[in-house]
């Protein structure tokens, strides 16, 4: 059960975004990595301001990256035959901000944070091989 507020529960449009600090008890999220060993690169937003504009990404989300509430949700978001999923335990007392953005899929969470902070929150990486 997520502790993050959803737009629907607050009578807002599904496309509304409610960005909040990490809840007092912390928050566990999952993020797809490029390799088994996580790096800052895995947590770095990639788009410049102009790239975001040209690709139709709202400025708000140019600096956020995708995470998932559950490991299985992250795995299903990957097309790769072998994917790597990091488990992050986010602390409450940080500059991190998170928003449940489930119009992009159940359990999808946008995260705004310094890449070093996210890298430091990784507690495990699971290698997942997709069955043919």
């Amino acid at each position, binding site marked *: 059960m997520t502790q993050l507020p959803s737009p629907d529960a607050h009578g807002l449009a*599904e496309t509304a975004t409610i960005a909040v600090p990490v809840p007092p008890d912390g928050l566990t999220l999952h*993020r*797809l*990595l*490029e390799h088994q060993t996580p790096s800052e690169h*895995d947590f770095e*937003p*990639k788009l410049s301001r102009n*790239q975001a504009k*040209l*690709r*139709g*990404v709202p400025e708000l*989300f140019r600096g956020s*990256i*995708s995470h998932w509430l559950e490991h299985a*949700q*992250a795995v*299903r*978001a*990957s*097309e*790769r035959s072998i994917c790597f999923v990091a488990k992050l335990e986010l602390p409450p007392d940080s500059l991190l901000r998170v928003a449940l953005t*489930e*119009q*992009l*899929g*159940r*359990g*999808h969470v946008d995260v705004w944070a310094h890449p070093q902070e996210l890298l430091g929150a990784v507690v495990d990486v699971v290698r997942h091989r997709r069955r043919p």
Partner: protein
Amino acid sequence: MGVSAFIVQESIHADWVSRHETREDAIAGIEEMIREGLAEPGEFNIREIDSRGETVRVFGVPDAAAPAKTGVA
């Protein structure tokens, strides 16, 4: 969550780019980015979600989206 949708996302980390109502619109979005030099073939794929928001499948755009590789001098 309402209706099914097609999410254009970056292939490795699944960072989202846009949400579309149809598969064709999502493919067209990627093809346009490739045509305009904003993306490389394979850089993005499409995640289909059902009306409950669950991921149904993830697929790449057809090879036809890639620039033609002709040997014309």
